[in-house]
């Protein structure tokens, strides 16, 4: 069953907690326009790690996309939604 946009965001927050345990940003303020690098302090490996965790968590595979395609949380949520519909 496809998850709603808010549910996806909640799951994403859980994943971020797991990935960034040591230097966790304020996830209560996690907005769709939060920038993965500038606002959340992720580097390229952090983004890659989150993507892998998303793949395992949501059972989807990111195909034909690169890091540059995901600038904000909203971009990631959009992609997951799109994949769920497929």
């Amino acid at each position, binding site marked *: 069953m496809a998850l709603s946009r808010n549910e996806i965001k909640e799951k994403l927050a859980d994943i971020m907690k797991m*990935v*960034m345990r040591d230097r966790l940003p304020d996830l209560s303020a996690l907005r769709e326009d939060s920038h993965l690098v500038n606002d959340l302090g992720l580097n390229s*490996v952090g983004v*890659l*790690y989150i993507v892998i965790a998303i793949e395992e968590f949501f059972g989807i595979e990111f195909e*034909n*996309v*690169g890091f540059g395609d995901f600038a904000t949380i909203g971009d990631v949520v959009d992609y997951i939604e799109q994949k769920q519909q497929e």
Partner: protein
Amino acid sequence: MSSKNNLKNKKKKITVGDNFLYDFVKVTGSIPTLIWMRPKILHFGKKHKIKGGFMASANHCSFVDPILIHCVFWKRRMYSLATKDLYTTKLRTWFFNRMHCIQVDKENFSLNSFHEVTRQLKRGKMVSIYPEGQLNRGSQEMLAFKSGVILMAHSARVPIVPVYLVPPGRWYQRRAAVVGEPIDVRALCGDMPTVDDLNRAGDYVHQKEEELKEFYQKFHKNPKMAQPTAVSNKRRS
């Protein structure tokens, strides 16, 4: 239905073309390579024989480094990463694919590349990788390592073998490489590492390669002084 699928899989495995060109180039290229490079391969500590998949992590100081790594792991078929800029024509694409190259876009790292690397590692193949992320020609100092390499090895559950490639002098000079002991990434940063754990593991691999470099420098100055490490370990094994 399932037996039909099994048959299909079996047929796929038997195809000759997959490794033919790779093996042909490797074997025919070995003679000029051995004459030109005369590779000297040193082992730091105990020499390990790894049967399954593993990742060879090396510094990148020359465009012929992949050939030198082939010499180091001669008995293994190697997969390596190649920048997207090399895939300019259909013929080149075909050739690089046949030569076990995995295409990588440096500007916008594709997840397909990541999946392909982990897939080959899980299949028990060897993948060579340069964690410096670029050719570091002319410098004696290694650049900082990118920890994406650690993530790949961690996801595929394979060890990393650090390799120090001695920067080339003149084109005709002998090339040397020092092989370190395999590093178990899962033991190093746990099953559920954070980004910082991965970065720390990347630093650890860098440190190990610096040790290999020091070992080579000692060996170069006085071969007898540096040899006992390797000799005593050989005796132990």
